[in-house]
């Protein structure tokens, strides 16, 4: 992936149970310091998504790495940025906390 160029990535999720699940996902970027350069244009996250029983779906993320990444000396040795998502089951009335780095 070239900083500044938009890119597409796919994750896959499956609901292995026999009941529909409504979930919300949050994301994590490693290394931590690279997270500020990671810009999501559109993704499946931050909103409730419903997976029917046994359903498997593709989950796209459309993003780009901020071109300023190449100018940050702290990023000079960073060749690999890992984006991961965790799916939580949404509970009634629960507000999604923005992913934090506590």
């Amino acid at each position: 992936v070239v900083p500044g160029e938009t890119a597409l990535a796919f994750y896959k999720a499956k609901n292995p149970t026999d009941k529909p699940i409504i979930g919300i996902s949050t994301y994590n970027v490693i290394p931590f310091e690279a997270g500020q350069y990671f810009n999501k244009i559109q993704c499946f996250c931050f909103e409730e998504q419903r997976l029917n029983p046994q359903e498997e779906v593709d989950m796209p993320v459309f993003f780009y790495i901020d071109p300023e990444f190449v100018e940050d000396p702290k990023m000079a040795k960073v060749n690999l940025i890992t984006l991961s998502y965790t799916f939580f089951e949404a509970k009634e009335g629960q507000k999604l906390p923005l992913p934090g780095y506590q």
Partner: protein
Amino acid sequence: MSTAMNFGSKSFKPRPPDKGAFPLDHFGECSAFKERFMECLRDSGYESGACRQRAMAYLECRMERQVGPRGAARRGLPSRGGEGNPRWRRSQLMANEPLEKLGFKDLIDEKSEAKPEK
């Protein structure tokens, strides 16, 4: 350990996507486009830049797919109060956006240059 002073670098704030969430493609309407994109990635050794045409095709597929309130139920989306709810009245797998604004300007320019003059 990182220092407390961070001249010239941005502070990290987790943030939602610029253009919101993709509805799930429950019926796999754009799966073929996704497969072609993934095939390209595998063949190119996972060079994202080499597969931008197919990424663009996938996003175009999403933009062409509409779903109304009944469609929303068919797609297994949670029902949110029927026709009166603007959020579910008309939704697509992706909101229409000019491809030039999604970072594909150079590919669009190439396409129009390749078109023969009438």
